[in-house]
């Protein structure tokens, strides 16, 4: 990497000569830098705009426990988001991690069957959230006669984040050196013991960052939830009741069109949550690369 930077230095020192009679290269050089700048600029404008617009509307009223037409509180939505996130993770983590363990530690890597499971995981990750919503609606709300329910929404989301958890766990497991496994077997540990006492603890940061990524998707999800957990603006008495999450709350405010100020404020809360999630995922990735002496 040091040679790369020194090349850059030489280039920038001679940048006036470098592009002599090389208009094409100069244009590309400019486009490359301009595009990167635009990418960052877009992110900056988006965050700045949403925060500036929303922060003035944040008030204690928006965090009162019960939603009324007067306070348009987002508190029930925050609690529902929390409930749905927990149920989703409780379902998806054991299944996803278990699947990844099977794929990496047990399955014969040449096996056709393995390729088939990979294909279905990839298919799942390519399905748009509205299709998940439609499926969840048809299966849980209609077929199971649950109506709109937090549980139905959480089950739908669990299937949706399954590929994320499987893929990140797989990568984390694969990054555990084989010598660890061999050492564990050599000490007389069985396969199961090796997995739970050696491999999983080593792979934990990678698995965690995948889980945090999934939390981000759950919190931001709207299309898959509108017709599965519904849009009721209160915390239901059980998980079989309907309740809107924060993102759905924002959508209903926008589509009602009456509470734009509150929608901006909700946007701020949502953005802050997403920022926190991304920061903690970065942090964990850093721990991961730290322990492995990158």
């Amino acid at each position, binding site marked *: 990497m040091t040679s790369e930077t020194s090349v850059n230095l030489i280039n920038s020192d001679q940048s006036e000569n470098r592009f002599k009679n090389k208009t094409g290269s100069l244009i590309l050089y400019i486009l490359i830098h301009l595009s990167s700048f635009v990418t960052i600029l877009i992110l900056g404008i988006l965050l700045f*705009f949403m925060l500036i617009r929303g922060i003035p509307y944040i008030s204690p009223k928006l965090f009162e426990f019960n939603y009324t037409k007067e306070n348009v509180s987002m508190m029930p939505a925050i609690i529902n988001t929390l409930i749905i996130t927990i149920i989703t993770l409780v379902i998806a983590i054991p*299944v996803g991690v278990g699947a990844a363990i099977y*794929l990496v530690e047990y399955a014969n890597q040449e096996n056709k069957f393995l390729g088939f499971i990979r294909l279905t995981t990839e298919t799942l990750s390519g399905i748009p959230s509205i299709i998940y919503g439609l*499926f969840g609606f048809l*299966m849980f709300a209609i077929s199971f006669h649950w109506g709109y329910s937090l549980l139905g929404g959480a089950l739908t989301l669990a299937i949706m984040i399954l590929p994320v958890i499987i893929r990140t766990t797989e990568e984390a497991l694969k990054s555990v050196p084989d010598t660890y496994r061999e050492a564990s077997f050599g000490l007389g540990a069985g396969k*199961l013991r090796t997995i739970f006492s050696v491999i999983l603890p080593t792979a934990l940061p990678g698995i965690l960052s995948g889980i945090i990524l999934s939390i981000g998707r759950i919190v931001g999800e709207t*299309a898959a939830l509108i017709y599965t957990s519904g849009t009721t603006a209160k915390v239901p008495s059980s998980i079989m009741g309907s309740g809107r999450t924060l993102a759905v709350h*924002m959508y209903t405010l926008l589509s009602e069109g009456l509470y734009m100020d509150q929608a901006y404020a909700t946007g701020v809360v949502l953005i802050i949550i997403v920022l926190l999630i991304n920061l903690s995922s*970065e942090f964990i990735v850093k721990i991961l690369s730290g322990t492995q002496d990158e």
Partner: protein
Amino acid sequence: MSQTIKENLMRFIFLVTALVSVLAVLLICYFLFINGIPALAKIGLDNFIFGKEWDPTNNIYGIFPMIIASIYVTAGAIIVGVPIGLFTAVYMAKYCSNKIHRFLKPAVDLLAGIPSIIYGFFGLSALVPIIRNIFGGSGKGILTASIILGIMILPTIISVSENAIRAIPETLYEGALGLGSTKEQAIFKVIIPAASSGIFAGIVLGIGRAIGETMAVVLIAGNSVSMPTSPLSMVRTMTANIVLEMGYATGLHREALIATGVVLFVFILIINISLNLIRRKAL
């Protein structure tokens, strides 16, 4: 003895968890097709897909304008997102210092982590007024949706392309430089062609994202069911159609919405299959 039983039992449990994703795909297909196919039969596949009128009160269900809208908006997103994304990926892989990369990478990840409803709201409150002031009309439409979707697929394009570019051996790049080409020539004539199938996979992934995007599009595309005549036309995509009407639809109307989902799902499956073919070629 009990140890072997335990080992085998857990092995079986892990196998079962691995099969959950297979089961999930089967269930999704089953529920969509079982509920959507009858409507296709009643309306007629031809009338449904190529019908230009959507009028639930008179039981007329044609989604052709929506298919076209989905395709236009997706194409627009690709036109906006691919050049910016590809150039940014080149910058991140070949130009920027480690220090800048440590800042850019999380920024791109954050762009990927922002919920689509926020993008939609941003489009609605920031971009729609700008488009309205410049071009007149409502400000909502294909152009607005394309720009926001283009931004939304940026992180996908950037990450996948950057990885593809980084995967090309450094010797190829150095060889080109040694033969006297400029850094840009080396990148665009040697590296990018070599990384093309990886980059292409990123673009196809972006197409999948854009065509399936719902919440942002609902807020900024205008949602009127008519054949688009200009980039400023207000359109309704297939995804928007489902979200907008599912809440109150009953009977054949509901089935027609599910059938819209089936058509979208078929599009997604085709995109997935081509993605797999490209990836296999890339390996």
